């Protein structure tokens, strides 16, 4: 239900010399639990125990929901028996490292009266301190005492206090309370009959959104005092987190998710046809995209839409093979600006988009168009029927159909194919002057390549003009808002949140399409922390 935006100019607002519009009402997302991603797990361990603690093991894969983010997939997954075995092994490995002679003094602040005998007081102090960081909240008495008891028993058997607390620490690390971010709730004092996130759960949600890691001590303190429930303290914490370098890590994770960069790992190209697609190139291509994004959105605080027209990027010697430009710096990354007549501008013309959305040995305007629609415009493209004859499209040596455009045009004459191809191919064909790995070309099989087309009625003649059309398409900015909110709540957006998202889109425009402003709006909003009433709860 659309709720009209109301303006409240109360005494408090007058005192603040501002008159902010009230936030659009939203249903909120249901309370749930999300498995920590591998990156979040590693970040948490490094933040709590130090970057030198080795995390060695495999993590259960996260399944990407259809047309959604991996982040949302974390709320739809359990831990498999094999995954738990891995988690348990990793937990004990980490515990052993944390309590080895080189590390234990930083965490075990008490000394047992006898190193060969149990010391419940010392063990309790250790578990309470470390457990708060791992569980992102204080341990309950039951949780605490079970670890103390386990440490006692292990010490009695081994005759070694350190071994006892190591076992207890391992059980904390293997606990669902560490492996899952749980939406713990409490009655909402401002909304009778409703529930809200506890202060600690609120801190976790905020921290995983802006830092992609567990809350730090200051944020946990704000939760402990419940200060985080006040708008002022929340805003202060948000600003603190957003000013930290760690924001970049979260932004990189979000865009890697939005752009499906995890698929690059399995990307292969025909080595005979595309010898330049070497390991170093493959490693650098997603990084180039992420560096471009971070530079434009965070360093420059630029307009998100300009990511589709900017010629500024970063480059390495290896990528110079693909872009066929000189790269003075022998190692590492250096800023690079494509020339006006390079034909390149924006993310669509970077190697990552071009190569990731091509076949092994030939380009695919269909895949490129589909990726643009689904990833960047949030428009679902139906999957092809099972009985499609691809022979004509795959025959790149047919003298009657020299270019991909020729082949796809013939393919589209089949009625069953035309419906989908007309929403993908016209835009994908706009990038045909870049081959399967992203090298520029002007002709295919001796025939000049035509890159003209239209995006939702907006004509373009070149890849740069296609980038401009994407930039100016209303769905582009709207899609980012949907995606980042989905990333923030790590849950598919509910119907009851649509009005809120719409208002967020409008605010995004008012803010000049600045990502940081958008993230801040989300982080300080009530909607971000709102919990939907449980089904059958009468609400």
């Amino acid at each position: 239900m659309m709720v009209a935006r109301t303006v409240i100019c109360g005494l408090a607002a007058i005192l603040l010399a501002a008159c902010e519009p009230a936030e659009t009402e939203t249903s909120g997302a249901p309370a749930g639990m999300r498995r920590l991603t591998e990156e979040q797990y590693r970040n948490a361990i490094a933040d709590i125990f130090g970057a030198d603690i080795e995390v060695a093991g495999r993590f259960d894969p996260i399944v990407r929901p259809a047309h959604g983010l991996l982040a949302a997939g974390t709320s739809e997954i359990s831990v498999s028996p094999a995954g738990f075995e891995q988690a348990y092994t990793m937990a004990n490995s980490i515990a052993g490292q944390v309590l080895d002679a080189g590390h234990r003094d930083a965490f075990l602040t008490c000394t047992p009266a006898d190193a060969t005998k149990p010391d419940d007081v010392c063990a309790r102090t250790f578990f309470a301190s470390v457990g708060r960081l791992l569980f992102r909240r204080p341990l309950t008495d039951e949780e605490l005492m079970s670890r103390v008891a386990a440490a006692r028993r292990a010490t009695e058997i081994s005759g070694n206090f350190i071994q006892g607390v190591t076992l207890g620490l391992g059980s904390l690390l293997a606990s669902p309370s560490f492996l899952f971010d749980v939406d713990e709730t409490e009655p909402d004092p401002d909304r009778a009959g409703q529930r809200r996130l506890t202060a600690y759960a609120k801190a976790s949600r905020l921290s995983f959104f802006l830092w992609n890691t567990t809350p730090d001590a200051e944020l946990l303190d704000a939760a402990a005092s419940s200060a985080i429930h006040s708008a002022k303290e929340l805003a202060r914490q948000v600003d603190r987190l957003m000013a930290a370098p760690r924001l970049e890590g979260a932004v990189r994770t979000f865009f890697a998710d939005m752009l499906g960069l995890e698929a690059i790992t399995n990307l292969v190209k025909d080595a005979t046809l595309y010898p330049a697609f070497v390991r170093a190139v493959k490693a650098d291509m997603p990084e180039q995209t992420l560096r471009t994004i971070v530079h434009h959105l965070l360093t420059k605080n630029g307009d998100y839409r300009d990511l589709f027209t900017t010629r500024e990027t970063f480059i390495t010697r290896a990528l110079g093979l693909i872009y066929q430009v000189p790269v003075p710096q022998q190692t590492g990354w250096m800023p690079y600006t494509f020339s006006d007549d390079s034909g390149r501008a924006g993310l669509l013309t970077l190697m990552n988009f071009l190569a990731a959305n091509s076949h092994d040995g030939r380009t695919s305007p269909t895949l490129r168009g589909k990726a643009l629609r689904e990833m960047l415009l949030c428009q679902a493209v139906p999957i092809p029927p099972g009985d499609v004859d691809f022979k004509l499209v795959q025959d790149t040596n047919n003298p009657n159909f020299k270019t991909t455009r020729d082949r796809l045009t013939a393919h589209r004459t089949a009625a069953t194919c035309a419906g989908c191809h007309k929403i993908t191919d016209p835009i994908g064909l706009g990038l045909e002057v870049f081959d399967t790995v992203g090298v520029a070309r002007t002709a295919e099989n001796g025939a000049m390549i035509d890159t003209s087309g239209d995006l939702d009625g907006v004509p373009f003649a070149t890849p740069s003009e296609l980038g401009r059309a994407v930039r100016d398409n209303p769905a582009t900015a709207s899609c980012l808002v949907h995606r980042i909110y989905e990333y923030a709540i790590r849950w598919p957006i509910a119907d009851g949140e649509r009005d809120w998202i719409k208002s967020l889109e409008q605010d995004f425009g008012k803010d000049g399409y600045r990502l940081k402003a958008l993230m801040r709006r989300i982080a300080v909003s009530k909607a971000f922390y709102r919990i939907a009433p449980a089904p059958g709860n009468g609400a």
Partner: protein
Amino acid sequence: MPLHHRLLAGIATLTLAALPAGAAGDGETLGFLVINFAPAVYRGDFASDCPEGLSATTDEGFLLTQTPAERARLLKPENAKELEQRWKIEFTSGPNGEEICRNPRSFIDDPRHPIHKPVQSKIALGMNLDDNVDGSATPLTCKHQTFTGTDGEAGVDNQLYRAMGCAKAWRGTDATGSEMQIKYNAYMKDGLHNYLIELKGVNDRRNDPEVEVGFYSTEENQLLSANGGHLAHQTFTVTKNPRWHNVLKGKIVDGVLTTETLDHFTVDWFSALNGPFGAANEYAFRRAKLRLELLPDGTLKGLLGGYLPVETTSAQARNGGRGVATNGNRDCASEYKSMLIHADGFPDPVTGQCTMISMANDVVAIPAFVLHPEPPPAKTAAAE
């Protein structure tokens, strides 16, 4: 403007920007990475080139020193171990235990290691280096036989080919290349040394009366394709060592670039092992010149001709030590003697014996971006 023209213009712009003012003329600048740099071996009719057959390998040379009866005995399977011990150790050791490849001069009077069978035909790859078609002695050369080039050029000087062209390791057994050529080119892939070519002031790739040719070393390594092939369009920076900068005037006629003769033409050899400023293993040509064809696919292909010190030429074997003679089955002493006897350049003023040998190197180069190092910052009074 077509894309490849834009790319070339980009190269020109960037390279020119890094040069001192006035160093480059009009026209485009083209950069190349050398991917083939090994002594050129003409493989003509074998019976004409090597009528006496291939020269002996180390094991064959050893057996030739034995009586027929002893040879037959050693070749029996039950004596394989003894045979191996004798040809690999005894035969490759000098009078004081010297290694045959590290100290070939110690074998100079050892009759067990005769000179290799020379090439006897008249055709070879190469160039006329001494501007003298009949091979008579000049102040810079000793009397020698000349070849006719594969393009009909008279007076071609390539005594290295004459000396080594019937050795199996140099000639190979088919047209695909020899073990020596494969190794020479692998050195570049392995990053032991790499070379760049830069053409400046090219106004017409088919005919241009004046271009500048730079042939440089670079310490930067190549990226190779997944199957180990060379990749075009990589960027390399020219070495800072000025000894390995060779700049020549040239001209292009019908797509073939020829250069003037450069008295000293020096590039590094194994600098990755010897350090960027080491001179111990330089490839130091005298009286060198280039003849390279600009092919339609963008590559350069041709020859570098010049005189190399015999000691340098045998250094490739010296670097490998005894293993070259045993695993590589090359008689380094015979190679060394053959080079000495066929040396035709730069006579020793005292003995009159020539110290250098004429030769031609295959050169194939693919498009690359060639950058020049930033000049060192000027010293300031404060810094001093």
